[in-house]
């Protein structure tokens, strides 16, 4: 089991207390930032009346769809591009041009093609998540040591066996890195696209609360979003350390050496 990070929790607690005190003592701050205790009580209230869960569920569904779509397409494409050099050379300029473009810029295009519904939000999320997964997968495949591929060859593995037994597992740590980076991106894009145009979801909810001056509720929803992001990342890390235990051990060993 992991040890409980007492020091970190103490700092977090101290900051919450500071927040609470500041907004109580200064009416200037208090006007725009309700005390932490009030925010958490409000959080309990909007969880209790189902309002938050309704929006969170809508966001999480979009998140899951966009993320899964990106993972499926980009791992596949990344493997192809990583394995086949001419294909990569062909697509390299396109990738290099599109990759640095901030993904929210695709929202207007997605609205034009897909409307303002779920399809648009899922597409935008999938687009943003695709890049880290794609690039890490390509890199993962291309950085496989030739000695490993020669070993597969000397044991006369066929193309499929070589792919399943050597290429895929050898590239998997990098693929997982891409998936982890995309996890955070997915939540960002879901929220952003919901803020632009939507009638449910946490992004919409937060903006709507701000516009209707329900300030404690707005903060409560933001806290909820932080908790969701944290939980998703924890879940990912737990899964990762189960499935990729060999790689965790390997890198830990390399750190010691």
């Amino acid at each position: 089991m992991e040890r409980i990070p007492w020091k970190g929790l103490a700092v977090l607690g101290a900051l919450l207390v500071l927040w609470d005190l500041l907004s109580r003592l200064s009416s200037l701050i208090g006007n725009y930032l309700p005390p932490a205790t009030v925010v958490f009580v409000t959080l309990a209230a909007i969880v209790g009346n189902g309002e938050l869960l309704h929006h969170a569920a809508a966001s999480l569904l979009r998140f899951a769809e966009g993320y899964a779509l990106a993972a499926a397409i980009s791992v596949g494409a990344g493997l192809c591009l990583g394995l086949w050099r001419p294909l990569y050379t062909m697509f390299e300029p396109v990738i290099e041009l599109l990759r640095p473009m901030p993904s929210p810029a695709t929202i207007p295009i997605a609205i034009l093609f897909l409307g303002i519904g779920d399809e648009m939000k899922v597409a935008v999320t999938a687009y943003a998540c695709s890049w880290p997964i794609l690039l890490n997968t390509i890199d993962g495949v291309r950085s496989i040591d030739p000695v490993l591929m020669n070993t597969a060859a000397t044991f006369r593995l066929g193309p499929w066996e070589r792919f399943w037994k050597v290429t895929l597992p050898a590239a998997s740590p990098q693929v997982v890195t891409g998936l982890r980076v995309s996890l955070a991106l997915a939540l960002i894009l879901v929220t952003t696209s919901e803020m632009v145009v939507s009638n449910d979801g946490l992004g919409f909810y937060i903006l709507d609360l701000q516009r209707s001056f329900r300030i404690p509720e707005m903060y409560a929803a933001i806290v909820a979003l932080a908790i969701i992001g944290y939980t998703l990342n924890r879940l990912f890390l737990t899964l990762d350390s189960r499935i990729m235990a060999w790689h965790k051990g390997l890198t830990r060993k390399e750190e010691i050496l």
Partner: protein
Amino acid sequence: MLEVRALKKEFQALSGQPVVAIEHFSFRVEAGQFVSIVGPSGCGKSTLLLCIAGLSRPTAGEVLLHGREVTGPPEGLILLFQEYNKSLMAWRTVFRNARFGLENRSGMSRGQIDAEAQRFIELVGLGGFESHYPWELSGGMQQRVAIARALARRPEVLLMDEPFGSLDALTRIDLEDTLLRLWASLHATILFVTHDIEEAVYLSDRVYVLSRRPSRVIEQIEIKIERPRNQLTTREDPRFIQTRHRIFELISTELTRS
């Protein structure tokens, strides 16, 4: 059984200039022999093994295994690399690494594969480490895993590319004897590349001495010291010392040749 005829391998260097790694290279290995190749470093020994293993196409000349030209990785031949840490599958345990080479063997049941893998793990002295990952083991133990994986496949010819080159002296001695014991009991044929003259003499029936690049065979030396060999008595044998002396002279002449 293994024959290399007039092999030539040319590379395109980064500068664009062609570099001839190997030229006019001919030699043969008989079934059941332990043959070593020694030569100055950078003389193209690894390139030679890649060509013999069918992993790299020669520019000219040919490699024959049982009289048939090698054009791709042939059945019955395995190449074992010096870089055990790169050639072992880090995601597989020792046991699953050992069975790797048997998994695409037709006509072997899962039970037979497991039994063979287990047998070879024990033959290389790794019994008890089956469920360890390679990176949990020392360098010498990792190379033992690689040897078990290669031999479990029961190759007629095992090519070894400086397999003990990065190991410490004591581990090396231990592995040399393990290898000799396995070679004798499995009736395998081994072509062993090394830059260590003593190692070549100690292990081999025959040693081929290579020239500098473009490398070719400059001398073929038969080692007639009886087996089983012994790290102390063999190395103190006058014939061992004479042979070592002779090879050393050949290589140092080669190195100082302008």
